[in-house]
């Protein structure tokens, strides 16, 4: 037989086998030059049943895409649905997803263990005894919905709009629920962001008018990360894979992290500064660039608002760029390498090396800071602000390999209905003391309620667990237990959590493969949308069995939120007399309830450029296309939006102010992309800002008041913080000068790479990998205390203490200890189990609280035989209970780092003990509140907040006015 004949014989055999729908070559392998099943075979993909080995038993799957619901990066998943049993057998990556490109972290495939968790909540439950007593009865969805809707309807009718609040963790969607709240007319959105990323957001927002960065890691020459958990713990998959690409192409990776994180282990330069000193180092690097004229002079001249700075701060100088450069050198001259070294404890030569590397990056400098250093410190918003200063100096803004504002790398389509923003202002979330807060003061809610600022009729916690996640959890328990403060607490959650114990209703919501959502994230320089969908619903539809209610295919009576909110809204206003129902009505059949297919079909048909054409090319409708592939890339390789010329059609009766800001009377073009960004105000004659004049040309610019990158923030200057009008260094609340000699710094914000807050604790695979949170302590400190790994330590905060095990490691710098907040879950009885939850005893006397561990995790009998194989008992310590609130006086972010005393455990101390005096936590709250500068004293125009700043729900301008305040 010739070679040709042999080849033909192989081809024929392949054809014959594949015509039977079977696989000829082994499944996904490198032989196919891809790691994924080809999409044309997703309808009927054959794999051998591993459990049948050595018998060759083929199983046929339909591969249905959805989106992971664990962290916020929205990676694509492919559910392998067994065609015989219609059960999901596993999850792999979706190669059609532009952000994750078929790759997932451990949390993606572990979704299977979340949906099959034997202890998940499957039915609506209503409290049977006292709140927190742990007694429940199953109720129908109708009973729960009618009760909740009736209360909300009465609140709206009686103008008690501010008594309805929705408290959300990571939303996992782009604006759906905000629009529901807007439809109700309530200003009740309460995000978790102020315990998360507000400080980082503030730094970016003041520069660009957009509150998130989007580094083009893959094309960078230098990648500079402050904190590592974004790249190893949370959004890590889409970012990490691109950082590794950059490294393979020769990029240098610099990581600032006090702790040796997974990201730091991959760094060319790992720098472990004293916590809170990061901004000082950034300023020293910036100063080096400035003093040695190594910055992008032309970019700075064109795009910084230096004219505004000179006018406001240096009227003595003629407004020339040369004069600004002289002033710039003066401003930062004090930030020498020696200064930064003294503040940070990092060797001066190391900082000099970093500066040299940054200087060589040109416009390919990709930088990123999110939580950690920013979230840990008072003034932490200057960390991201000073980091972005480096980009602004190098001109590495929206360049290939540089850092984009996220709004240009994200796409949020126009929905079918857009209700107006509420005409009320909720001071429980946006208090006068914090006019510049980036997000709602969510973590101060217990204190606000206790001091009588308001009360809540209906309070939703949505896949969020404030008792466990927020600081000062015992204060949360105190208000959640008080029915005079919170009339009805509705916990929307797939699994039990510490806050749900104190709910009146616990309503089972779907995990990622059990719900619809639309998501877009800044994973790279491109724009994409990802479609989360209930997998079994999509599967049934492919089999010609339409599903109109996701509860038909979800386990038990688990519902998806989209349908839940539509139904609840309908019940609030069943006749439409409140004007609410219209926003959940069908357009195809007016007067009937909006269906999910219509909701998404409308978006995909009308608001996603290119999608209808791509779908038509495959003889699909846009909705069918998204159900089949789960994601769509609208554009990749975005141009710098700020440089785009403003079309002549948008220039009508134009005015230009003295700083070059251009205003027009032409109406705003109706962009299909409604991604959030700041909205600078128009001129006094009613024109809207449309661009900025740069070197004689009118271009888009940035969504800031000046239209330029705001090196100088007139907002900060005018609202009571002139000393911080420019990027600078604020000494943290845990600065060495503020610590007693026997105190150390506790870093509590870092993640375990396989976990994600409350959401992953019942994922048995993930919990088997990581289930404890020992205290990282340097050998020098361990030696001083005479402790070894495994010994018990007592960690004392301002309001109490917790007892934890030591882990002696050189992965942390001396004088600093660290404990991940991902562990320490607890429950008060044995009514349900879980691989990561200890059973605890909660004692309460006056303001003194004590949580003691009864027993840790262990094996138990359930539908899942793996639950009898749990081999670990240690599930960590709930340290956040011992943290008082630390609201940053400007951004409103809770500043997580703690000044602590680390001692050997006392004789009566037991592992996992937590003891707190909530009266002390109140005193700390008042101390920090006193740092704020209230709008009542500092508002320049009698309003509560600068109108141009981003805000999730944004009432009309007249509502911004302080009641009874100055009328300007």
């Amino acid at each position, binding site marked *: 037989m010739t070679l040709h004949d042999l080849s033909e014989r192989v081809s024929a055999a392949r054809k014959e086998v594949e015509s039977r729908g079977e696989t000829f070559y082994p499944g996904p392998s*490198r032989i196919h*030059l891809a790691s994924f099943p080809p999409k044309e075979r997703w309808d009927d993909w054959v794999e051998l049943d591993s459990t049948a080995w050595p018998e060759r038993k083929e199983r046929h799957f339909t591969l249905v895409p959805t989106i992971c619901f664990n962290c916020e990066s929205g990676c694509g998943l492919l559910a392998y649905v067994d065609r015989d049993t219609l059960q999901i057998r596993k999850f792999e990556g979706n190669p059609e997803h532009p952000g994750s490109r078929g790759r997932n972290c451990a949390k993606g495939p572990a979704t299977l263990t979340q949906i099959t968790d034997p202890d998940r909540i499957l039915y609506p439950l209503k409290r049977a005894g006292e709140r927190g007593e742990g007694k429940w009865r199953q109720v129908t969805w109708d009973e729960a919905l009618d009760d909740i809707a009736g209360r909300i309807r009465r609140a709206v009718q009686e103008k008690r709009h501010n008594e309805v609040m929705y408290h959300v963790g990571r939303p996992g969607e782009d604006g759906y629920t905000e629009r529901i709240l807007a439809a109700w007319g309530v200003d009740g959105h309460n995000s978790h962001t102020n315990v998360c990323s507000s400080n980082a957001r503030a730094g970016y927002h003041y520069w660009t008018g957009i509150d998130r960065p989007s580094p083009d890691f893959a094309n960078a020459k230098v990648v500079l990360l402050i904190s590592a958990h974004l790249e190893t713990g949370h959004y890590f998959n889409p970012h990490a894979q691109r950082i590794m690409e950059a490294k393979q192409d020769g990029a240098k990776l610099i990581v600032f992290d006090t702790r040796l994180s997974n990201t730091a282990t991959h760094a060319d330069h790992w720098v472990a500064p004293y916590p809170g000193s990061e901004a000082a180092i950034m300023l020293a690097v910036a100063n080096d660039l400035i003093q040695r004229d190594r910055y992008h002079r032309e970019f700075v001249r064109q795009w910084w608002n230096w004219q505004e700075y000179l006018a406001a701060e240096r009227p003595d100088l003629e407004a020339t760029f040369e004069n600004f450069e002289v002033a710039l050198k003066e401003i930062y001259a004090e930030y020498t390498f020696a200064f930064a070294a003294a503040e940070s404890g990092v060797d001066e030569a190391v900082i000099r090396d970093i500066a040299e590397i940054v200087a060589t990056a040109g416009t390919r400098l990709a930088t990123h800071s999110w939580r950690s250093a920013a979230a840990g410190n008072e003034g932490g918003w200057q960390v991201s602000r000073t980091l972005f200063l480096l980009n602004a100096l190098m001109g590495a803004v929206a360049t290939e390999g540089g850092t984009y504002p996220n709004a240009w790398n994200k796409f949020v389509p126009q929905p079918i209905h857009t209700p107006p923003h509420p005409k009320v202002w909720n001071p429980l979330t946006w208090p006068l003391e914090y006019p510049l807060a980036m997000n709602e003061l969510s973590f101060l809610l217990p204190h606000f309620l206790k001091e009588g600022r308001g009360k809540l009729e209906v309070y939703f916690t949505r896949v969020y667990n404030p008792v466990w996640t927020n600081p000062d959890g015992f204060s949360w328990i105190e208000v959640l237990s008080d029915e005079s403060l919170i009339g009805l607490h509705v916990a929307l959650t797939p699994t039990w959590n510490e806050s749900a114990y104190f709910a009146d209703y616990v309503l089972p919501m779907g995990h990622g493969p059990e719900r619809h959502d639309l998501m877009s994230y800044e994973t790279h320089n491109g724009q994409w949308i990802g479609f989360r969908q209930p997998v079994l619903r999509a599967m049934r539809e492919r089999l010609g069995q339409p599903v109109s209610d996701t509860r038909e295919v979800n386990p038990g009576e688990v519902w998806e939120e989209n349908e839940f909110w539509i139904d609840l809204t309908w019940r609030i206003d069943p006749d439409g007399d409140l004007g609410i129902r219209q926003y959940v009505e069908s357009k195809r059949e007016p007067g009937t309830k909006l269906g999910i297919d219509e909701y998404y079909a409308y978006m995909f048909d009308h608001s996603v450029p290119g999608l209808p054409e791509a779908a038509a090319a495959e003889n699909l409708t846009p909705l069918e296309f998204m159900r089949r592939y789960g994601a769509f890339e609208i554009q990749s390789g975005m141009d710098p939006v700020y440089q785009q010329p403003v079309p002549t059609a948008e220039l009508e009766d134009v005015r230009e102010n003295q700083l070059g800001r251009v205003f027009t009377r032409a109406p705003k073009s109706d962009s299909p992309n409604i991604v959030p960004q700041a909205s600078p105000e128009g001129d006094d004659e009613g024109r809207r800002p449309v661009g900025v004049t740069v070197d004689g040309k009118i271009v888009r610019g940035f969504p800031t008041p000046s239209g330029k990158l705001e090196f100088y923030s007139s907002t900060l200057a005018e609202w009571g913080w002139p000393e911080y009008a420019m990027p600078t260094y604020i000494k943290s609340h845990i600065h060495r000068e503020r610590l007693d000699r026997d105190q150390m710094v506790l870093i509590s914000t870092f993640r375990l790479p396989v976990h994600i807050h409350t959401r992953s604790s019942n994922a048995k695979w993930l919990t088997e990998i990581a289930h404890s949170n020992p205290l990282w302590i340097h050998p020098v400190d361990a030696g001083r205390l005479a402790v070894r790994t495994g010994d018990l330590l007592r960690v004392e905060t301002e309001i109490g203490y917790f007892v934890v095990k030591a882990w002696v490691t050189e992965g942390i710098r001396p004088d600093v200890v660290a404990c991940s907040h991902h562990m320490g879950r607890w429950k008060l009885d044995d009514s349900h189990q879980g691989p990561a939850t200890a059973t605890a005893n909660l004692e309460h006397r006056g303001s003194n609280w004590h949580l003691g561990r009864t027993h840790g995790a262990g094996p138990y009998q359930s539908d899942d035989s793996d639950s009898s194989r749990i081999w670990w008992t240690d599930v960590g310590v709930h340290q956040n209970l011992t943290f008082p609130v630390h609201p940053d006086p400007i951004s409103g972010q809770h500043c997580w780092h703690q000044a602590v005393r680390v001692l050997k455990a006392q004789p009566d101390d037991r592992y996992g003990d937590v003891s707190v005096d909530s009266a002390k936590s109140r005193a700390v709250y008042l101390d920090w509140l006193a740092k704020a500068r209230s709008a009542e004293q500092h508002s320049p125009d009698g309003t509560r907040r600068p109108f141009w700043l981003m805000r999730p729900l944004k009432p009309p301008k007249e509502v911004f006015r302080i009641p009874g305040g100055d009328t300007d």
Partner: protein
Amino acid sequence: MMELFRALAVLAEPPTQETERLAEVLGIGRPPAGDEYAELFLFQLYPYASVYLGPEGMLGGEARDRVAGFWRAIEAEPPAEPDHVAVLLALYAHLAELEDQASSTRQKAAIGTARAALLWEHLLSWLPGYLDKVADLAPEPYRRWGEVLIAALQEEARRTPLPQALPLHLRATEALNPRKATSEDVSQAVLAPLRCGMIVTRTDLARAARQIGLGLRAGERRFALDSLLAQDAPAMWRWFQDEALEWCQRHRARDAWLPAIARDWAARAQCAADALGRLRLEAAGTRPAGTVSSTMAP
């Protein structure tokens, strides 16, 4: 032909149940067993181009970078192991298919150039010698696999124009210097195919020990070799010299269809043989008269 390359690529992967069917279709007799795969590809003949084309004879390094660079040059993302024989053969099949399906002459020519580069630079630069050893060591299914593969490669070489230059891998690494190489240089080089022109496996070291009468210490090749040299260096140099001369003949036998590459490999083996001869004499206390001459230089 391309389906043949893809099938041969699959056979260089750990055996699965699909392998049975492929073995039958290819007529290579019984399917290989898992332990046979492990013995051949994990313990004897590592199926990565970088082992045979890098200066140290190790996985990765510059040689793998060059292969990865080829993937990037054709705008494909290099896989995790870009130089594994299975991936290279699958890529070759893929490029040949694209070439067949090209819609324009220009496109066809461009893809054809890429395919030819892959063939000459990254396949024919090492696989003929590698498959020689497969023929020596492999159990029946893999021996047949090697026979079909070398025949297929010969056929592809016949239909693809000869390149003007030697593969970059070969140009980038020098042969042993027969006059100056120290015993340390040579002991390093004998386990680096590109430096010495021969492939020395664990089995070969065991054979050397057996033939010379030395004790073989269990361990990785470097450890075993050092032990053998410590016991009787002159005898080992002699043994390697004979091996190198034999490899010289093996390479020369391919001169007709692989002229430049075969000559280059033969010259490397000859240089190694010369260096080994000099070391053998030095170790035995006999200095060779005059300088060692090498008839061929790479």
